[in-house]
């Protein structure tokens, strides 16, 4: 079984450049994880602070390999009828009503209940077949013919029971439906789980996954990410702003700015036609980077100093 997209994952370098072509600049570790996930057939569990591109990674993989992205957002109270499958109860009821008249014909004029029942068994489980199955994200991903990217987002928000329910899917790429049997993926999907570490996930779940931790990127990588996501930005401004954000991360803030905030800020600066980091301009746009009033106050107080300390020279132009 060879499928076009699988050939694209034949080396770590190819994975790295492929993700770049989809607009995602991966660190070495991220590329390794995606490559291994395919070759070992294991899901990736991505952890890290908000806004470092956990969800974006799944989107980028699906863009690059032209695979459908099937996304399942987890929340408290999520259960298998919403995640895996459900019977189409309405349709079942409707069909029984419609077919009522035909029942007599189907059963014939069998004498006695026993014979009629036997005849009925012969008709097989009409109403519990795939026609009446409403597939939810997990089942969709397994049955999607050319493979898919399955993103199970924020798995730490779901209950512990749901985690246990995921285990069969994650280790064997199959699920069991009592009425039909076991459904196996022909082409195993690429599975990614994300977590914000709201609670510690179970060991059983972690054991079945490759564990990828995406932290806040170092300056060089961040500059490349900005270059790719905000193409219109001037090179010197880009280096300057990355150096400034890196400087901010050294402060004791409630919520450190992550990559998504840096990208937003770069976009804002481009929109405002800024060519360099004017203290006044920075102060006005600080609310894009920082999400807490107290953080903004801390930074605004020492803005001049921070701008001086930010050294763009350390970041390569390309």
């Amino acid at each position, binding site marked *: 079984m060879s499928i076009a997209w699988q050939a694209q994952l034949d080396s770590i370098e190819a994975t790295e450049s492929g993700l770049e072509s989809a607009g995602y600049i991966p660190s070495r570790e991220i590329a390794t994880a995606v490559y291994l996930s395919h070759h070992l057939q294991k899901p990736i569990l991505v952890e890290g602070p908000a806004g470092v591109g956990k969800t974006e990674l799944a989107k980028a993989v699906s863009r690059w390999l032209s695979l459908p992205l099937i996304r399942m957002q987890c929340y408290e109270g999520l259960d298998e009828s919403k995640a895996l499958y459900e019977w189409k109860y309405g349709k079942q009821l409707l069909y029984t009503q419609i077919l009522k008249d035909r029942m007599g014909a189907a059963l014939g004029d069998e004498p006695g209940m026993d014979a009629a029942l036997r005849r009925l068994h012969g008709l097989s489980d009409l109403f519990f077949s795939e026609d009446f199955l409403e597939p939810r994200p997990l089942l969709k991903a397994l049955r999607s013919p050319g493979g898919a990217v399955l993103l199970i987002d924020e798995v730490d928000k779901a209950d512990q029971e749901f985690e246990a329910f995921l285990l069969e899917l994650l280790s064997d790429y199959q699920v069991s439906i009592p009425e039909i049997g076991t459904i196996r993926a022909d082409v195993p999907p690429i599975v990614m789980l994300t977590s914000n570490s709201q609670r510690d996930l179970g060991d059983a779940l972690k*054991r079945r996954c490759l564990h990828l931790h995406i932290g806040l990127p170092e300056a060089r990588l961040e500059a490349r990410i900005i270059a790719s996501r905000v193409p219109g930005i001037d090179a010197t401004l880009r280096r300057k702003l990355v150096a400034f954000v890196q400087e901010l991360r050294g402060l004791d803030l409630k919520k450190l700015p992550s990559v998504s905030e840096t990208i937003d800020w770069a976009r804002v600066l481009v929109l405002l036609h800024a060519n360099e980091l004017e203290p006044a301009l920075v102060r006005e746009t600080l609310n894009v980077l920082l999400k807490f009033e107290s953080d903004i106050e801390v930074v605004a107080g020492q803005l001049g100093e921070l701008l001086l300390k930010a050294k763009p020279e350390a970041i390569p132009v390309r």
Partner: protein
Amino acid sequence: MEGPLLDFFRAARSAGLRISPAETIEAARAAAVVGFEDRQRLRDTLGLVLAKTIDEKRAYGVCFDLFFKRASFSDPAGKAAEASAGEVPPMPGEMPAGGEGEGGGGALAAALLSNDQAWLAAAIEQASREARLSEISLFTQVNLFTRRILERMGLGALEREIVRTRTAPRGEALTQARDALRERVRGFVEQNLLLFAEGRNQEFRARMLTQARLTAIDRRDHERMRVLVRAMAHRLATLYGRPRKRDRRGVLDVRRTLRRNMAWEAIPFRTIWKQERIEKPRLVVLCDVSGSVAAVAQFLLLFLYSLNEALAGLRAFAFSSALADVSDLLTTLPIERAIPEVMARSGFGSSNYGQSLADFEREYMHLLDSSTTVIILGDGRGNRTDARADILQRMANRAKQVVWLNPETRTVWGTGDSDMPKYTPHCRVSITCNSLFQLERVISELLRVG
């Protein structure tokens, strides 16, 4: 490469990573997929499979670097030797005794004189494997293992050769080379000790400290204890920090029951009960900080103040002869500095329970309501002052519950000047608490029930 990989798993386990057999298989598969040539890539790969939390990633990084930094891996000659391990001949252990003929001193002497680094590195590696160096567990074993490894490398033959050629320049050179080699092997063994035994020793100490009597813990272990207490508190906080619910059995949740039973035309085969929130406990803590109980008090306070998000509220009071509110101290100062401050403010007198309870009733009774839990830590020895159990009774009536933690074992409650028998009737729980293990059990029970 199988051998080194297995050794690495052992080293990683000792560094505190929990690696199951299944994960070692996965790791070996992953390593086979990416290959062993690029060390950086191998590091990324094994990290993805083996380390499952941020802390583990950090420990893993240190361990990996330490492991592969060892002499035989880092110098290029060693790597070359490893690649052609099959050809590194003739291994010293198998040297015939008569091999001292020409030149003398065996292969080891030859290698030392010609400064054959590749051979030496390979020989050290093999000899340490034969000596089961990865099972080293105590620093006192360093000399033993050094000796064993050197002997396996052919030290005996070398020594004889040195004695034979003592006066000749060859003897001089060999003596120097031997001493240098001994240092090198010693260094190698010490590195291995760090790698394989450090984690196990730490773990052992931690386990001992958890069970040890809090009153008997040495001052130099306090730092380690704080780390342990914080880790325990963190574990409980993640477990109970989230909003939790429990079923109210017998009260039907009609809407969710109908939805659940749609498949059976809403005939309720499966019932779903309404749920209620489990409230996080609000605590008022009274700690006796007189000499006899002070050691326990500081760990209790540290524990409670590390729980933050799992508690809905926390007020702390310290007393010996009189009561003082220490909540502000504990919230503003880092705990290491706050505890001595608390002690200075009210500690180290002789305890007077009656007076302290009276102080509480006079000023802070309004803190108690039907959702607060009162925790009192003390031995109940009031130095024959009035016990004032009636105040405790009024507190118990107002609060949700009173929990009394006593560092003494139950058998001595009531002996001498102990007033415990007067207090216990008003406490929902009164329990001995004199080790970290017991402390954790009491607090996790409190959090679980809510």
